[in-house]
C-alpha cells in the first residue's frame, strides 16, 4: 500500500527532515509512526498527503508513483486518503453534520446518500446525537471524533493520523485508538504518528520509528514483510 524508496526531504534552508528512508506497509495494516518531535513524522505524513514533495527518492501509494502526479491531480490522490489532524481542522461556521459531509460533497454524492453516510460515520464515533451542534461547543475528545468521522466518511483506503491523541488524556486517547483499530479491522490501512509509546505498547500494532529523519526501527521489516 505504502512504499518508500530511498526518500529524502530537504526543506528550503537546508534542514533535512527525512534522509534516505525506505520501508513498506502492506495493504490493510495498522502501523504506528514513532519518534521524538522533530524526527520527521509529520513530514512523512505530509509527503503521503502530497502537502510536500520528496527531494529525492520515490513514494508508491497504492500502486501509484506520487512523483508522476501533477499538482492538478493531487486532489484525486487525496480523495483516497482520510487525514486526522492533531488540532482537528474543523470549521466552526457550520454544524457537525456539514463538517463531516464535506468529503462526500466534494465527491458529488446525492443529498440522500450524504445524510445516510454522515449519520453512519457519526454513529461509528458515537456522536450521532451531536450532528446539529456546532463543533466549538464540543469537548476536545468529541471534536477529535468529529475529525475522525470526516476522515472516514468516504471510506478511504488509507487513514493517516498526526498525533490524534496529542491533546487528550490517556483514557480518551485509548478510546480514540480503539476507533482506529475498528476501521483497520474493516480493511482500511491506517498509519498513526504518535509519541505516546505507552499507548502504542498497549495496542501492540507494528511500529516504524524515526530518529533525526532516519529509520531506526521497522517492525514490519523484522517480521519479514519486506
Amino acid at each position, binding site marked *: 500500500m505504502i512504499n518508500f524508496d530511498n526518500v529524502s526531504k530537504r526543506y528550503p534552508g537546508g534542514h533535512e527532515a527525512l534522509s534516505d528512508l525506505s520501508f513498506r506497509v502492506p495493504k490493510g495494516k495498522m502501523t504506528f509512526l514513532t519518534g521524538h518531535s522533530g524526527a520527521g513524522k509529520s513530514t512523512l505524513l505530509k509527503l503521503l498527503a502530497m502537502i510536500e514533495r520528496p527531494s529525492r527518492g520515490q513514494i508508491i501509494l497504492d500502486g501509484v508513483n506520487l512523483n508522476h502526479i501533477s499538482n*492538478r491531480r493531487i*486532489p484525486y490522490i487525496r480523495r483516497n486518503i482520510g487525514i486526522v489532524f492533531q488540532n482537528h481542522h474543523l470549521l466552526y461556521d457550520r454544524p457537525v453534520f456539514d463538517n463531516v459531509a*464535506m468529503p462526500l460533497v466534494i465527491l458529488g454524492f446525492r443529498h440522500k*446518500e450524504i445524510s445516510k453516510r454522515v449519520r453512519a460515520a457519526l454513529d461509528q464515533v458515537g456522536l450521532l446525537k451531536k450532528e446539529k451542534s456546532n463543533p466549538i461547543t464540543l469537548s476536545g475528545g468529541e471534536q477529535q471524533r468529529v475529525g475522525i468521522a470526516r476522515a472516514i466518511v468516504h471510506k478511504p483506503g488509507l487513514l493517516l493520523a498526526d498525533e490524534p491523541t496529542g491533546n487528550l488524556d490517556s483514557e480518551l486517547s485509548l478510546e480514540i485508538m480503539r476507533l482506529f483499530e475498528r476501521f483497520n479491522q474493516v480493511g482500511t490501512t491506517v498509519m498513526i504518528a504518535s509519541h505516546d509509546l505507552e499507548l502504542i505498547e498497549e495496542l501492540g500494532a507494528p511500529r516504524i520509528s524515526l530518529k533525526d529523519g532516519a529509520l531506526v526501527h521497522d517492525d514490519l521489516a523484522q517480521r519479514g514483510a519486506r
Partner: protein
Amino acid sequence: MAPTSPQNSLFTAYLVHHLRVFIASLGHLSRAPVATLMTSAVIAIALALPSGMFVVIENLGGLSHSWDGSTQISLYLKKSVSTEQAQSLADRLRLHHDIDAIKLIDKAEGLKQFTASSGFGDALKYLDENPLPSVLIVQPHIDTAQPEKIGKLLRELQAEKQVDVAQLDMEWVKRLYTLLELAQRAVWIIASLLALAVLLIIGNTIRLDIENRRAEIEVSKLIGASNAFIRRPFLYTGLWYGLLGGILAWLLTSASLGLLDGPVERLSGLYGSSFSLSGLSFSHVLNLIALSCMLGLLGSWLAVGRHLSEIEPS
C-alpha cells in the same frame, strides 16, 4: 480501492453540484444582506450612470434621424416680393435639375402657421402689416452625402435677386450629429472606466471573501477538493453580485428616466412635437444584465485566480 462511484451519471452529478453551489452561494450572500446590498448598489450605480446616458443619446439620435431625410433649403424672399412673383420664381426653379420639389409658403400662410404654433399670434394682431416674408422650401435632388454639391446649389439660390436669405436646414442636424458622436464617445469612455470600477469592486469583495474563508479552503484542499471545486462558489458569488447589480441598475435607470419623462413630454409639446422619451427596451435590459453578470464573473475570476493559489495547506 477507490471510493465507489457516487452517482449513476457523472453529468447529472456535475449539474446537480453546480445547481447546489449556485443556490448555496446565494444563501451565503443572503446571510449578510446589508453588505450584499451595499456592494450590489455600488455596482448598480456604476452601471446605471452610463446606461442612462446611452438611453438619452439614443433618444436624441432618433430625434435627429427623423429629420435626416428632409434636407431642405429655405429661401426667405425679400419682403417686397409678392405672392405672384414668388410663385413664378418657384415655377422657374422647379425646372432646375438639382431640385426635386418646391413648396411655397406665402406671407398669409406663413402668418397662419406662425400664429398656430408659436403662441405669439395675439402679438401679431398689433402690427399693421404681416411682417413675414414668403418662403420657398426647396427639396434638393442631391444626396446629403455630397455637401459640396449642396453648397453650390445653395450659392446659386442665394444669388437669385428675389432671395433675401438662403438657409440650409441641414446645418444644425449635422452639428447635432457631431455633438452626439462626441457625447457618445464620452459615454463610452465613462462606461469603460465604470466597468473597470465594477470589476475592481467585485474583485476586491471576492478577495475579502476568500480571506474570510481561508480555513475552509485549506480544509477543502486537504480532503481532496479540486481547484475548480474551490473556485466555483466564489465565481457564482461574483455572478450573483453582477446579477443583483444589473437588476438594481435597470431599476435605477428606469426610475430616473421615469422622472425625466414628464418634463420631456411637456418640453416637446412646446415644440409641437409628439416626441417622448423611450426608456430601456427589453433587449437593452437583457444586455445590461448580461454585461453586469459577465463583469461579476470576470471580476471574481480575476480575484480567485490571483488569491486561491496562495492558499495551500501546510
